[in-house]
C-alpha cells in the first residue's frame, strides 16, 4: 500500500516537474534555513490576519451595497423601523441581522483588522529594537513601513464603509484635516468627496479603494517583502557560532511549513473565538449617518487614535495669548489642525521611514549586519524607540480622554492639561530611564562574564573568610554576552593645524562628532578575552 502511494505521488511530482521544472524551486525553498525565535512570528501574525481579512472580506462584498441612495429601513431591527438611511447602511444591517453568519463574519473581519494593525506595529517594534533594519535590509524596512501606512488606509476606508454616524464623524475630521492644508486643501477635499462633504460619491469611491486598490497594493508589497526576506536571508539572534556570514536554523520543510501552517489556524481560531464572544463596531447603535449628531465616546479605531489625540491635545490659544489659528493675507492658516494632524504625523512617520539611514549616517556604521542586536547593547536606539512609543501612547491616551475621565472620575480638563505637558516631558524621561536601564543591564552582563553566576553556596575557608561560590558561564552563554559591536565616538582632527590655520569643514565634522557621541559616548564595552583572563587569576 505504502509503496503504491509513493509510486503515485512520485509519478505525479515527476509529471509536474517535467512540464514546469518546479523541482529546483521546491528544493531551494524546502532547504532554506530559518533561525528559530518566537518574536520572528510577529510578522506572520500580520500576514495571517491579512489572509483572514481577505477571506471574510470576500464574504462581506457579496452582501454589501456601496451606494448612498436613500432607502427606508424595513427589517427585523425595531429601533431602525421606518428610518431613512443609505443603502450602504441598510445593507450592513441586512448582512448583520438577516444573512446567516453575517454578523459573525463582520466581527471576524473587524477584529482581524485590529489584530492586523496591532501585529504590524509589534513586528515593526521587534525589527527596530533588534536592529534588523540595518544594511542590507533598509529597503525592506521601507517596504514594511509602506505596508504599515497601507494598513491604516485599509482600516480607515473599511471602517467608513457602513456609513454610520461614528465613521461619518471620522470622515468629517479627515475632511477638516485635508482642508487645513494651505491653498491646496480645499481643492483636494472637493476632489476627494466629489464636491461638498459628504456628497454622494464617497462610499463607492471608498469601496473601490478598500476592496481593490489598497488590498492589491498590500498583496504586491507583501510579495516583495517576503522575496526580500528570502534574498537577504533571515536575521538571527546572537548565539554560539552565529555570525554576520551564516544562518543557524532549521529548514523550511518540514519544520516551518508545519509550524507556520498550524500557526495560521491558531491565529484564525483566536480571531474567530473573540469575534464570536465580543461585539465590535455595533453600527446599529450609532445609526445611519447624519452630519448633525455627534455622540459622546466618539473615537476612531485604535490605529487612528494618535491623530485624534493630537487634535484634542492642541490648544486653540497658547497661554491664552497667542492664537494657533492664523489669518494671513486673507487666508486662514489653522495651525491648530495643521500641526497635530498633518505636520506631527508627517515628521513622526518621516523619522520612522528614514531611521535606518539616519542611524547609519549618524553612527558611521556601514557593515552588513545579519546578527541582531540585543536591545540593551544599543542603549541610544532602544531609548529612542521607547521615547517614540511613549509619545505615541500619550497621544492615544489623550484621544481617550473622555473615556478615562468618566471611568476614573477625573476632570477632563485637568487630564488634558496634564497630557499637554506629558507629551513633551514623558518621552524625555522615558529616554533617560531606558538608557540608564540598558547601561545597567550591560554592566550586569559584564559582571556575569567576569565573575560567573551566583550559586548561593557560601563556603567558609580555613582561615575564617566566607565567600560565595561563583560558577563560570559556559561558552554558549558567554558568546551571547560578549559578541557585540563596540563602537567608540568619532575622533576628529583639531580645528587648527600646527601652523595655527583654521581647517575647512571643521564645523561639519564637529556636528558629526556630536551625533556620534550622542550614540556612543555612554557605552559599556564587552568583556575582552584579556579581561576575562585577568578576572580568572584574581579569583583563584
Amino acid at each position, binding site marked *: 500500500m505504502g509503496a503504491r502511494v509513493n509510486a503515485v505521488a512520485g509519478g505525479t511530482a515527476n509529471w509536474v516537474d517535467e512540464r514546469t521544472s518546479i523541482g529546483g524551486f521546491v528544493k531551494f525553498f524546502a532547504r532554506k534555513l530559518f533561525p*528559530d*525565535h*518566537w*518574536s520572528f*512570528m*510577529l510578522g506572520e*501574525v500580520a500576514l495571517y490576519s491579512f489572509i483572514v481579512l481577505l477571506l471574510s472580506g470576500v464574504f462581506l462584498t457579496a452582501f454589501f451595497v456601496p451606494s448612498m441612495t436613500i432607502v427606508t429601513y424595513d427589517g427585523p431591527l*425595531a*429601533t*431602525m*423601523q*421606518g*428610518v431613512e438611511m443609505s443603502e450602504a447602511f441598510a445593507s450592513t444591517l441586512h448582512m*448583520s441581522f438577516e444573512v446567516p453568519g453575517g*454578523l459573525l463574519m463582520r466581527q471576524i473581519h473587524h*477584529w482581524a483588522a*485590529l*489584530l492586523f494593525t*496591532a*501585529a504590524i506595529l*509589534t513586528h515593526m517594534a521587534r525589527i527596530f529594537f533588534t536592529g534588523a533594519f540595518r544594511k542590507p535590509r533598509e529597503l525592506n524596512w521601507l517596504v514594511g513601513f509602506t505596508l504599515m501606512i497601507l494598513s491604516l488606509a485599509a482600516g480607515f476606508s473599511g471602517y467608513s464603509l457602513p456609513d454610520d454616524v*461614528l465613521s461619518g464623524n471620522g470622515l468629517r475630521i479627515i475632511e477638516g484635516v485635508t482642508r487645513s492644508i494651505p491653498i491646496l486643501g480645499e481643492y483636494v477635499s472637493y476632489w476627494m468627496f466629489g464636491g461638498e462633504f459628504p456628497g454622494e460619491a464617497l462610499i463607492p469611491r471608498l469601496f473601490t479603494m478598500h476592496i481593490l486598490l489598497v488590498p492589491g497594493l498590500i498583496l504586491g508589497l507583501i510579495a516583495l517583502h517576503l522575496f526580500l526576506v528570502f534574498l537577504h536571508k533571515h536575521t538571527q539572534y546572537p548565539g554560539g557560532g552565529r555570525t554576520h556570514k551564516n544562518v543557524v536554523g532549521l529548514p523550511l520543510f518540514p519544520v516551518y511549513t508545519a*509550524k507556520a501552517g498550524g*500557526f495560521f489556524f*491558531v*491565529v484564525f481560531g*483566536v*480571531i474567530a473565538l*473573540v469575534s464570536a*464572544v*465580543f*461585539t*465590535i*463596531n*455595533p453600527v*446599529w447603535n*450609532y*445609526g445611519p449617518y*447624519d452630519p*448633525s*449628531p*455627534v*455622540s*459622546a*465616546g*466618539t473615537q476612531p*479605531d*485604535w490605529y487612528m*487614535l494618535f491623530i485624534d489625540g493630537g487634535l484634542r491635545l492642541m490648544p486653540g490659544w497658547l497661554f491664552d495669548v497667542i492664537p494657533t489659528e492664523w489669518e494671513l493675507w486673507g487666508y486662514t492658516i489653522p495651525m491648530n489642525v495643521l500641526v497635530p494632524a498633518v505636520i506631527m504625523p508627517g515628521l513622526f512617520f518621516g523619522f520612522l521611514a528614514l531611521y535606518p539611514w539616519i542611524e547609519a549616517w549618524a553612527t558611521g556604521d556601514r557593515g552588513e549586519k545579519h546578527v541582531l542586536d540585543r536591545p540593551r547593547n544599543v542603549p541610544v536606539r532602544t531609548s529612542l524607540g521607547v521615547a517614540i512609543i511613549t509619545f505615541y501612547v500619550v497621544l492615544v491616551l489623550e*484621544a*481617550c480622554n473622555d*473615556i478615562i*475621565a*468618566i471611568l476614573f*472620575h*477625573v*476632570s*477632563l*480638563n*485637568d487630564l488634558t492639561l496634564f497630557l499637554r505637558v506629558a507629551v513633551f516631558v514623558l518621552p524625555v524621561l522615558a529616554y533617560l530611564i531606558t538608557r540608564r536601564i540598558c547601561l545597567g543591564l550591560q554592566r550586569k552582563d559584564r559582571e556575569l562574564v567576569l565573575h560567573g553566576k551566583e550559586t548561593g553556596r557560601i563556603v567558609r575557608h580555613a582561615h575564617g573568610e566566607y565567600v560565595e561560590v561563583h560558577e563560570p558561564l559556559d561558552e554558549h552563554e558567554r558568546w551571547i554576552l560578549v559578541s557585540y559591536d563596540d563602537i567608540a565616538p568619532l575622533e576628529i582632527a583639531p580645528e587648527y593645524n600646527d601652523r595655527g590655520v583654521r581647517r575647512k569643514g571643521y564645523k561639519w565634522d564637529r556636528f558629526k562628532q556630536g551625533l556620534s557621541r550622542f550614540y556612543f559616548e555612554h557605552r559599556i564595552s564587552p568583556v575582552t578575552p584579556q579581561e576575562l583572563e585577568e578576572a580568572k587569576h584574581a579569583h583563584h
Partner: protein
Amino acid sequence: MHSLARHRYHRAAPVVLVLLLLGLIAGIAAAVSTASSANAATTTSADDVSEGQKLFAANCASCHGLGAEGQDGVAPSLIGVGAAAVDFQVGTGRMPMQASGPQAIAKRTQFSQAEISQLAAFVASLGAGPAIPTAEQVDPALGDAANGMQLFRTNCAMCHGSVGGGGALSQGKFAPNLWETTPTHIYEAMLTGPQSMPVFNDANITSEGKRDIISYLKAQDEGSPGGLRLGTIGPVAEGLWGWFLVLGLVVASTVWIGARSS
C-alpha cells in the same frame, strides 16, 4: 440517610451544593427586591404636605433653607421646581447630597417612596411646577423605539453616548449611564433638567417623544446581538481588548510554538 451519606462524596456534590447555595441567595435577593418594590407602590395620605414639611426641615433645610428659598452659592431655591424634580433627585439618591463635588452622585435612596411623595407634595405646594408623570406616560411598551432612536441621537447622545452608556463632561462632571434608571426617573430628568442637563419641556420634546426615548433606552436591555458589549464605549474598548486579549493570546501562542521541544 444512608443514601445521603453515600452521595456526599460524589464528584458532582460540590457543584450541586454551590448551585443550591446560589439558588438560595438569588431567592432571598428576589424576595427582598419584590418587598422593596411593593413598598414603593404605597400610596400617600392626605396630610402629605405637613409630613413633607417635617421631613424637609429635618433633611433638606440646612442647605435649601426652611422655606426652600435656597442660599447663594450653596443650594438653589426649590420654589416652583415641582414634584417631578423632588421625585427624581431624592428618588435616585442624589439628594440629600453626600458630599460637595463636581456633581451630586446617585446612591442608595435614603427615604421610602411614601416619604419621597410627601417631600414632593410639600415642594409642589410652594409653587407650580412639573408633576410626576403617570404610569402610561412612561410605559416603554407604548413607545416607538425607532422614533426614540432619532430623538435620542439628536438631543441626548452627545452627552449620554449613542445608546445611553454615559459620557464625560467638563471639570469632572459626567452624563450618567441610563440603563439602570427607571422610566419615571428618565422622564422626570428630561422634564426638569437636573444639574448640567438642559430642560426638555413638552414644547421641545412632546410627552410621546419622551416615551419613545424611554422605549429606545429600554430596548438596550436586550443586550447586543454581537455578544458581550465591552461597556458600549466604542472603539477605545475594542482597541484595548484587541491589543491585550487578541494580540496577547496570539503572542502567547507564538511563544508556545517557538519554544523548542528538545
